[in-house]
């Protein structure tokens, strides 16, 4: 087996292991709640018999370890359990009272909405930030670079909701170009959906682009200072070719890392943005569930966020291993 394959396998196993430990952490954290789920589901006025019945039904009379493995096995099959919304807030999700609402029912549509938002953001942000980052690195210390530095620092350090409201003010309220509320529903056309998603996507783009651009700039400047770039220039190679042929192949690893890191950041950033724009994504579901303490949903959302985060980092890791000539062509 080649050394690259071995390293990648190692990373994969490590990633899976991390995910497993994270699931334990999440499960334990949730079980640190006082009282138990059965009481929470039925509310304070429930009879002890009813509580016992539900407890048995949900397997809450089992020891913690058994419950963890049940939960994990369920999660692997895609069954995250039932939402508390069943008892308390059934009308909230449009279900009949008493009807069983599974966590999956709640999460699935939201998840694809969030992925749509993230994809649109990435599609706008990645090319723009790479382009601007390379440009800033090439003309470093110029007026353009300094202005870009101030602008990106400002948008990185501002809270997401500040940027969101500024964009709403200018693009939705003062010049009604885009809708300020993202009313997404089944069966809308692609263009319609895109239009509704554009404002949250632009806000996220603003934050992520700033990050990515700065990191790309730093990576490229670092690279341009290396002796082999000077050597290429001393060979009389055109500036364009120096960038494309000599800098880019070596910049791949850092750039992949930058992109992955920021896509992972999108996951956290998306929570606040979804709340501002009332975008029906998983982040909003998460915040709502936190407020009504719908524990199974919180738990599942957490696991999904963590899994996406770990997966992205893992992918970046593997891609940058693959782009390293030292590892691809061992001695």
């Amino acid at each position, binding site marked *: 087996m080649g050394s690259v394959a071995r390293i990648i396998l190692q990373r994969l196993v490590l990633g899976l292991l991390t995910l497993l430990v994270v699931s334990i952490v999440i499960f334990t954290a949730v079980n640190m709640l006082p009282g138990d789920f059965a009481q929470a589901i039925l509310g304070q006025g429930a009879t002890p018999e009813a509580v016992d019945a539900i407890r048995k039904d949900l397997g809450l009379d089992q020891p913690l370890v058994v419950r963890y493995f049940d939960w994990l096995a369920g999660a692997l099959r895609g069954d995250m359990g039932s939402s508390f919304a069943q008892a308390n807030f059934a009308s909230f999700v449009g279900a009949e009272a008493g009807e069983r609402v599974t966590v999956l029912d709640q999460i699935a549509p939201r998840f694809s909405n969030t992925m749509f938002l993230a994809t649109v953001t990435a599609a706008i942000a990645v090319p723009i930030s790479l382009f601007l980052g390379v440009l800033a690195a090439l003309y470093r210390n110029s007026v353009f670079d300094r202005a870009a530095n101030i602008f990106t620092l400002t948008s990185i350090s501002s809270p997401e909701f500040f940027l969101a409201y500024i964009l709403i003010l200018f693009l939705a309220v003062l010049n009604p170009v885009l809708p300020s509320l993202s009313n997404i529903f089944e069966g809308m056309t692609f263009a319609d959906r895109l239009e509704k998603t554009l404002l949250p996507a632009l806000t996220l783009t603003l934050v992520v682009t700033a990050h990515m651009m700065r990191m790309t700039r730093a990576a490229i400047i670092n690279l341009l200072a*290396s*002796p*082999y770039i*000077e*050597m*290429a*220039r*001393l*060979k*009389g*190679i*055109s500036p364009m*070719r120096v960038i494309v*042929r*000599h800098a880019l*192949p*070596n910049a791949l690893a850092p750039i992949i890392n930058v992109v992955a890191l920021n896509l992972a950041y999108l996951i956290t950033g998306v929570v606040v943005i979804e709340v501002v724009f009332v975008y029906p994504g998983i982040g909003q579901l998460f915040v709502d569930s936190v407020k009504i303490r719908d524990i199974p949903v919180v738990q599942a959302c957490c696991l999904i966020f963590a899994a996406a985060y770990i997966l992205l980092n893992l992918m970046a890791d593997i891609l940058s291993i693959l782009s390293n*000539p*030292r590892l691809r*062509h061992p*001695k």
Partner: protein
Amino acid sequence: MADRDILVKVRNLYLEGRSDETWIPIINGASFDLRRGEVLGLIGESGAGKSTLGLAAMGFTRDGVRITSGKVLFDGVDLINASAAVKRELLGRRIAYVAQSAAASFNPAHKLIDQHTEAPVQHRVSSRIDSERDAMELYEKLRLPDPEHIGFRYPHQVSGGQLQRAMTAMAMSCRPDLIIFDEPTTALDVTTQIEVLASIRDIVSQFDTAAIYITHDLAVVAQMADRIKVMLKGDEVEESDTRTMLASPTQDYTKSLWAVRSFQRPQKPPPPAGAVPVVSVKNVTAAYGRVKVLHDITFDIHAGRTVAVVGESGSGKSTAARVITGLLPPLEGVVEFEGEPMPGDYRKRTKMQLRQAQMIYQMADTALNPRKTIGEIIGRPVEFYMGLKGQEKRERVKELLREIELEPDQFIDRLPSELSGGQKQRVGIARALAAEPKFIICDEVTSALDQLVAEGILRLLAKLQDELGLSYMFITHDLATVRSIADEVVVMKDGRVVEQGPKTEMFRPPHHPYTDLLLSSVPEMDPDWLTNLLAERGVDNIGDAAVGNM
């Protein structure tokens, strides 16, 4: 040579470099002519501006450097006022560059041959196929192993000396009129260096290429250059043809450079029979993890003597020092101090044992805590071992500063960053002396310093030895240093002691073949040395090739 036409004409060139928002001069009015086929040696210590001048002769300045006035004419083209496009047309095609570190100057993402053919193809000098064939021929001329295939490797798959030759081949790819060699062998071991030198000299004369050869090593430049130009802190010192320059330098600075290599202290008589050595390394085997790096090492260091441990990089000489200090406990064997075995791990040694063996490091920059004043650095061992405090401690520190020839009141409250390299190294010596040890390990203490400064350090160490009766273990790769200061020599290779004995014996035949090779690979000031050596040993029996034959 004098009848050929002038290729490069540099007149009154002034360059400045930026530091903290202000511009400070780097080169103050350099002028020289270079004729076709001629090799000019640029020599000077660090900070002399020789690399900057070499690059300026290509019409190139690094970031943060600018040409303020002067002229650079290359074959009639004014390089300073030429447009970027005109300069690009010349660079790579008619002017080429060979950098100091080939490992860093080859692009890690592309094969050697793809980088080789880039300039000819981009400059439309030849097609890719022709250029590839030419590359293989050049590789063969430069005596690279397996010239047909070596080009298809990536830079990290090829050794340092081979990369340096591949880079020379790359510079030759368009058959330029001029090549700038910027310290091409500085980072290499002596046995590797000699092969590279021989190849470069050969190919430059074969293609009748003019060259500027930049180096700080006099003996190297004596082999390579037709003419030598000496630089000091951006100023020209003198310039004349190589033989004249070596035989009769006119300027004081040049003379002092030439005199450096003459310092030699007399060898001490052998220790009396039955004397207990200060430090005795007995049958030591040591390993990093599972990789054994020392195999059954044995040597003694007697009171008041200097033992030089010589070897190339990777020979295990620094590891031996780590075993003696206790940083790397040995797998087998023992280190004795005055006949008493010491624990292998420094953490198990007594304060007394730790005090008796001190160390001076190669890089004074990393050996002194940048946040502490000189007084604190030297004062700490005084306080720690001797228990002196307050005024007593300060007096002792001043005394130590006087011993290392630094003015106490001027230096005691300074930070390391306010000192020059040589002064920092002296503070390192004072810190070792503060423990009042019997034995000091000097790990390549002079290799990061300029030759004049290094000589001062060697003289100081010799003086201290005479005054205090210290024993030194002197780790070095530089045989000139061995000649000037050692009493006994231990030659190491691949973690084994190859040969050991008194210095006078070591420098007189018969030697172990490796010692012989090591000794014969050190360039000498004689301009005919390389020619004679090649005639004597043959091109295939020098340097690493000879190691392979052993």
